[in-house]
Structures are given as C-alpha cells and as structure tokens.
C-alpha cells in the first residue's frame, strides 16, 4: 500500500504590523523635530551674537578712528617737539661755546692786563732809577764845583756810586725798551 504523501500547508507568514513601522517613523519624526528645534535656537543665538559682535566692531572701529586721529595729532606734536628739542640743543651748544669764547677772551684780557701792569711797574721803576741817576749826577756836578771842600777819595767813591746807579738804570731802561718792542 502506498502512503499518500503528506502535504503540509504552510502557515501564515508573520506580517510586520503597521504599528512597528509607525513607531520607527514616530522616532524619526521626533528626532527631526528635535534637530530642527536645536537648529532654530542655534540660529537665533548666532544671530544675536553676530549682532552683538557687529555692534562691538562698530564701537571699536569708532574708537580706532578716534585713536588714529589722536595718534596723528600726537605724532605731529612729537615731531614738533623733536624739532624744538633739536633747536634747543643746538642753541645750548652755541651758548656754551659763546660762554667759553668769552671766558677765553676774559682770561686773555686779564693776562694782557697783568702784562701791562708789569710793564707799567717796570717803566715806573726804570723812570725812578733814571731820575735817581740824574739826581746823583747833578749832585756830583755840585760836589765837583766845590771840589776843594771835599776829599778826593770821597768824590771818586761817590762818582763810582753814581755811575753804578746810572748803569743799572740804563740797563733796566734797555731791557724795558726790548720788552716793549713788538
């Protein structure tokens, strides 16, 4: 006897339910909404921050412009001050030099004055010596007129003294004349 083949009818395949797909879609939707919300908030924050930065940039730009003007003014003043300083230092150098030259002239004048004083003193001494010589010679002439009243030895001694005095006076006079020659 031949057994009839056993035929087993396949059971129903598991059908993914629409609930499972919807769950995934819901998760996806929520995630998308969350990301969108985050992007929206981020955009607002960046817009706000950008506006603040732009305002600050304008403030600093104004400040830079003001500082540049001040810098230009300060640079001009500095340049003028440098010029004035240069002029002042040059003037100080000139004045120091003028003072030094005047000092030199004063010293030179004083030295000339001292020299002239010495020459005048020497001339006075020479004149005095020559005067004494003349007086001595006059006295000697007087003695010689009355030579019989004096000892011959005394007259000769007096004559030597007068001659020595006159020689000294003459030498002093010659020395003075040499000194005065240019």
């Amino acid at each position, binding site marked *: 006897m031949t057994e009839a083949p056993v035929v087993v009818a396949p059971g129903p395949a598991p059908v993914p339910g629409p609930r499972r797909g919807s769950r995934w879609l819901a998760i996806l939707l929520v995630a998308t909404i969350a990301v969108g919300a985050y992007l929206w908030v981020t955009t607002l924050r960046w817009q706000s*921050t950008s506006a*603040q930065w732009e305002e600050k940039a304008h403030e600093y730009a104004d400040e830079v412009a003001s500082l540049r003007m001040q810098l230009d003014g300060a640079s001009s003043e500095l340049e003028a001050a440098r010029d004035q300083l240069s002029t002042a230092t040059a003037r100080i150098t000139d004045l120091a030099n003028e003072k030094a030259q005047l000092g030199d002239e004063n010293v030179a004048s004083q030295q000339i004055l001292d020299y002239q004083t010495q020459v005048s003193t020497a001339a006075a001494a020479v004149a005095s010596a020559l005067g004494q010589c003349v007086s001595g010679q006059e006295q000697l002439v007087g003695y010689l007129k009355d030579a019989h009243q004096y000892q011959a030895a005394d007259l000769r001694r007096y004559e030597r003294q007068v001659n020595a005095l006159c020689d000294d006076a003459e030498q002093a006079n010659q020395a003075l004349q040499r000194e005065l020659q240019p």
Partner: protein
Amino acid sequence: MRPSARRGRALAVGVLLVGSLGGCGVLPPLPDPVPSDIVPSAAADLSPAAGGDALSPDGFDAVERMAVRIRNVGCEELSTGSGFAVDEHTLITNKHVVADSKELEVSTYDGHDITVGATSTAGLADLAVVRTTDPLPSHPQLADADPGPGDPVTVVGYPAGGELTVTEGEVMGSTRDPLNANLGEVLLTDAPVEPGSSGSAALDARGHVIGVVYAKTADDNSLLVPLSTLQEMLADDTAFTPAKGC
C-alpha cells in the same frame, strides 16, 4: 508584503535614523557669550619705558654729555683742550693739555663750569687725570680691548677750542709714536682732529672708549693713546704724579 520591500523600508528608516543621529555630531554648537572687553593687555616690550636707558634727559646723547672743555690758564699764555669723564669725579685728558698750568677751568657740553681738584700726569704716556669736586654729567664705559684696523671710531671734543664736535673715521692701524710722548705703540685713525681736540675720547661703535686723542699727523690723520695703555696707567698707582704748575 514581500520581503524585499520590507528590507528596503527598514534600510530607509535606518539610514534616516543614522543620518539624524549622526547629524547631531556635526550640528553647530551654540555661540559663546560675547565678552564685554576684548582689548588685549599691552605687551611688555611695547611699553613706552622700554629702552628708556638710551634716552637723554636733555636731548644730548651720552657721548656729548661726557665730553668736557679744558681751559689751561698758564702764567703767560692761554690754551684749550678736551677731556672726558671716566667716573663721576674723574677726567682723562692729555698731559700736554694741563702742562704749565696756573689754573684749569673745565666746562661741560651745556656750558656748566666744573670745579677742579687735583691734577696728575703720567710719566710714560701723554695722559693726565683731573679730579673734580663737582659731579660730571655722564661717563662712558671703557671697551674690552684695543680696536683693530677698519674698526669705526668716533671722536668727541672741542677742536680749536670751538664748540662741541663729533667726528668719525676708521682705525688705520698701530704705529710707533712719532712724538715719543708715549711708551709703546699708538693708534692711527683717519678721524679728523684739530689742535684743541687733544684729550678727546675716541669711541667705538658702541660708545665705549678705545683711546685718547693726543696728536694730529702732517697728513691730517689722528693719533690715539690706545685703550690698553690707558688701562695700564690707571691700574698702576705710581703711573701718575701730581702735575707741576707754572
């Protein structure tokens, strides 16, 4: 539903989910709050006081401030020379500048008179040391060594007794002293000098003393007592003796 359709939808959902979650990693962050002040603090090397040591209190630089004019009032004549400070109360000049002196009168770059004390002269070099009672405005440093040929030289002094003058040149080399005023060799430079420049400081590019001017040659070069001689003399207590007046 067929299996292939299911796989396709699952794949799409997965891609979207992965894309959404992965996108969170590249989303822009929220901005930081705007700071109230973004001005940086000033850098130290940009401070206005930086390099202030090089500034002069009155517009004259250091090489001018340390030079002095010396008037030698002799018993019969007047002469002038130059000198420079090596410390607050000491001047260096030439022996022949202070020779046969009845009185020395020293003045600074700005015309101030400096009261002078004792004067000493060296026996083996044309050098003299003048002590001052009043403080001197400025004094340079001595260089480390004698200069070599080609080195720049700056001479600061009072040529011909005139105003303070700065001249420049180069060291030409060393030579025997044609005046026999110094023991050993002296330096020859092409920096212009004149009578009255004697005693001037010769400075290198850094403003340090490398020698003392003491003479001018027939071909308009200048002769210096070298730094080494100056240092030897200053280090020797017996090198200087009190100067004899006229």
